[in-house]
């Protein structure tokens, strides 16, 4: 296989990505029926072709990125994070709305739009990994260690937060984990968690009493209310997802989902439920297993990486991806309130798939570097 020669980096990650992408194409195809009927006169192949294009171009992107030496990302992250802040601000005021959330920016010269938070997420994780690795010597110090790390995190999360609470929270948690892994002072972390909890509590209070004070206050309130009450009539989506899962006790077979007609986000937010309905619990377990494997490979790469930046970058990105996957699946099985996070590598979605591909490309780039080192015999196993 000549082709394999060009593919570097962790082969297991490559395999996992290809398997999930293949599954993604199959599941998306059957879940878009309702969309297709609404917008394309029942032509599901429109969505299929589009999805195949995006997935395969994502894989190409991943290939290109993994060829880049990962240390470059350290420097790029500085520019990226500085760029992210004004972009997010701009999106907040001028972006393309979907629902009442303004999350999207058009890519100039194309008909595509992208979610600025996807970009900011990537930039922030890389940047936090960079700062943490640079500040390792003074990491336990509040002024020299804690503050330089927490400042960009708070700024970026605060800018994402008004339009997309769940992404902001997810990103914040990912950074928290990264800080924890990066040996941040436990006291400072508790302080951070404490203030986070107080902030959320404060927010909930405001939303509860003045839902119109914040742009998406009403949506949030409704979602939390529905989840806590477990009211089947009003929480239609969650109920439909549960029905889909219950029907999956006997896998209905590809294309035989019924719930896809009722789930408004069948091809993205609730794709896991459709997947269980059509392919059964075994496939679901395999998918969870694949994500766990992905995380494990990330851990291994972090373990093998010579530099702290590489370790933290690999951990930060894999964790972010797998954590988002877990959250999405938890929502689908009604373990979590409805958020709006797609299932990475499986859900249909335009440019956000490409950002996932870039993440994976960076992870693979880190693993490629360690492979090179190991082959060169310069690096002994720990």
């Amino acid at each position, binding site marked *: 296989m000549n082709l394999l020669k060009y593919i570097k980096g962790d082969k297991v990650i490559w395999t996992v990505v290809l398997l999930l992408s293949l599954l993604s194409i199959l599941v998306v195809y059957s879940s878009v029926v309702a969309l297709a*009927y609404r917008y394309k*006169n*029942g032509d599901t192949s429109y969505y299929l072709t589009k999805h195949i294009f995006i997935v395969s171009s994502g894989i190409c992107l991943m290939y290109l990125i993994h060829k880049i030496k990962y240390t470059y990302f350290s420097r790029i992250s500085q520019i990226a994070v500085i760029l992210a802040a004004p972009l997010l601000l701009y999106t907040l005021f001028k972006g393309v709305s979907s629902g009442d959330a303004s999350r999207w920016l058009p890519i100039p010269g194309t008909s595509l739009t992208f979610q600025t938070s996807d970009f900011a997420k990537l930039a922030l994780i890389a940047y936090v990994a960079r700062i943490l690795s640079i500040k*390792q010597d003074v990491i336990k110090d509040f002024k020299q260690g804690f503050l330089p790390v927490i400042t960009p995190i708070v700024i970026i999360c605060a800018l994402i937060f008004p339009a997309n609470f769940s992404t902001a929270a997810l990103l914040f948690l990912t950074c928290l*984990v990264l800080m*924890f*892994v*990066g*040996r941040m002072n436990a006291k400072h972390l508790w302080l951070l968690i404490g203030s986070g909890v107080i902030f959320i509590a404060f927010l909930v209070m405001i939303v509860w009493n003045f839902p119109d004070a914040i742009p998406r206050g009403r949506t949030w309130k409704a979602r939390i209310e529905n989840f806590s009450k477990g009211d089947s009539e009003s929480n239609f989506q969650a*109920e*439909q997802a*549960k*029905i889909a*899962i*219950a*029907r*999956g*006790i006997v896998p209905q077979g590809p294309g035989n989902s*019924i*719930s896809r*007609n*009722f789930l408004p986000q069948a091809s993205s937010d609730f794709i896991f439920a459709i997947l*269980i309905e059509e392919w059964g*619990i075994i496939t*679901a*377990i395999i998918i*969870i*297993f694949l*994500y*766990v494997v992905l*995380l*494990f490979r990330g*851990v291994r790469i*972090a*373990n093998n990486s010579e530099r*702290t930046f590489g*370790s*933290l970058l690999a*951990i930060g990105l894999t*964790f972010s991806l*797998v*954590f988002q996957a*877990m959250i999405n*699946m*938890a929502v689908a*099985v*009604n*373990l979590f309130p409805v958020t709006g996070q797609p299932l990475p590598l499986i859900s249909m979605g335009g440019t956000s798939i490409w950002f996932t591909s870039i993440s994976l490309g960076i992870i693979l780039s880190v693993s490629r570097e360690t492979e090179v080192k190991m082959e060169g015999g310069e690096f002994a196993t*720990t």
Partner: protein
Amino acid sequence: MEVKKDILWRVYLIYFFMCLFGVAIIYKIFIIQFSEGEELRAQAERFSTRFFDIEAVRGNIYDANGSLLATSLPYFEVGMDVNTEAISEELFKDNVDSLSVCLSTLFKDKSYKDYRKLLVKARRSGDRWVVLHRDVSYTDLQKMKKFPILRRGKNRGGFVYLQTNKRERPFQFLAARTIGKVNENGTGKSYGLEVAFDSVLQGKSGQRWMQKIAGNVWRPINDDNEIDPEDGDDIVSTIDINVQDVAENSLMNSLKKHGADHGCLVLMEIKTGEVKAIANLKRTKDSTYVENLNYAVGAATVPGSTFKLPSLVAVMEDHNVSLDEIVDIGNGVCYYSNERVADSHPPVKSKITVQEVFELSSNVGVTKIISRYYSKKPQQYIDRLYKMNLNEPLNIPIPGEGKPYIKDTKDKTWSKISLQWISYGYETRITPLQILNFYAAIANDGKMMRPMFIKEVMNRGKSVRVFKPEVINPAICSKATVVKARKMMEGVVTNGTAKSLRAADYLIAGKTGTAQMGIVNGKMTYQASFVGYFPADNPKYACIVVVSAPSGDSYYGGSVAGPVFKDVADKVYSTSLEIHKEINHTQPKYALTAPKVKCGYQEEIESVLTTLKVKNQTNDENSEWVSAISSDSVSVSLSSKFPEETLKKGIVPNLFGMTARDVLYLLENNGMRVQLIGSGAVASQSITAGTPFVKGSKIVLQLI
């Protein structure tokens, strides 16, 4: 490495938590599938949905004059969402009785109590869908829209209906087999124009999103269709339903009279090939006749004597045989290789001309002429028949056309006597429509047209496609041969086997045929036919009548099929003004009988009588109002005495028989007030005739 180790345990801790997360998700899936599963799956039943095709309205089939031959009538399944929030308890209680009564009176299938029970029960049990009635016609649906509760519409009254279409043929069995049928559910056979133009007629079906509710009932989810159906185009056929009616009835009478097994009839316009009528009837077990097989199109059978025309045309073309050429038919019997050929009637004389051979339909005569010219090279005869397209199907749109079979000399079954047998219509198979088309070509100066069944495709009254007449062969034979052939055919009616077809006003030309179809139940069965055209001097229409297996003593083409031909020809001739000659050039000066005249306005009465050429005279030119005082059989005398004169004297006249307009004018002008009841002519009056009246008094008149 201290830093690295410190990082590692943290990483593994995180990893452990994520694994735990994964396990939690799997655990939750199990919970949902197993402990909560039962109830959720029951709910899923409730939510199952499907896209249903909504039938497009199938296009209509019209006859040549725009009468509907086949159409799709909408029927509705009407239901009600009795538990929609828009129907309050109060509204329901107040109206359920009257609604039940309305439904019961409209459909008469259940008592109002049953309807009430149905509605109340559904309301109580929380059903969202009750079927009120299936197969509701459009007019009934409109009535239902005025019913209590339902008149509030879909959203406010829960009134929901679904349309299905049923195919109907307004003229029922007329041309039924040719108009045809498409079996929607895939069972049974499809046939006729409906199949031939199915792609045009059917349109494009739309889709609607439906939800399954209790039982196997589906209910639409949205108000609108997800995809609207596109209705099919209409087609205009060449069939004229008035002619078809005569053809079908006349054929049926003949079949009944002769106890025939089946029969068919086709009437075609010569110039264009348009088929104006096509009837196919077959006897059923209970001795009624139905259209159940398209014999005219599909049944290729032995033609018998009608095939003598192609034979003689062939010999005239190839060898320029004249009509006066003498043939010796001896005593009407001859032998070829020991096979006997005999005429049905012994001849009056043995030496006859070709013209007479054809007129008398002499089998011996035809075989002798054909033998004379072709016995050395029989293939030349066959080639000539082929050149006249007799061995080709007509390729008409209706599926199932029978293929003609005329063997050539290379055929394995070709024998020494094949030439002679083929020459008078045996060892050959051809459909009635194909033989008719040959005769029509001769009538059309040798130009053979393709039979047409469809003139036009229309969409919402606009023409989409017009079908032009198609020429199969611009000249099957020379003009000289056409002249001879037509002379022979005219002779058949004037002197030969079809004298009974002589009509007063116009001349029919054609050929009888009586083919032996083989022995059934120990008895020879026959197929009687007549094929020809009219008017003979200026041919417009060609027609074939085939009556198969008549059971009585009469089985000759001239006596069994001929009368049907004449019935149809008479009808077509009488209704086709363009081929009529004016019958009466001279008219009598006066009408022979005078009509009864009522009293009225003199000027108008005179005008009517003059136009009708009724002799009339009056005793007072100046009187506006007159009545007929005497009318003998030929003339009318008008008098002013009555009724105006009487009125002037202040006496009410007898107004019986006067029209409303006249009576009103007359009486009101003379100072009476008139009240009219009813319409028509005066039948009775409130003040009897002869009674004096004062001005301003009122008279009531009953009109009938």
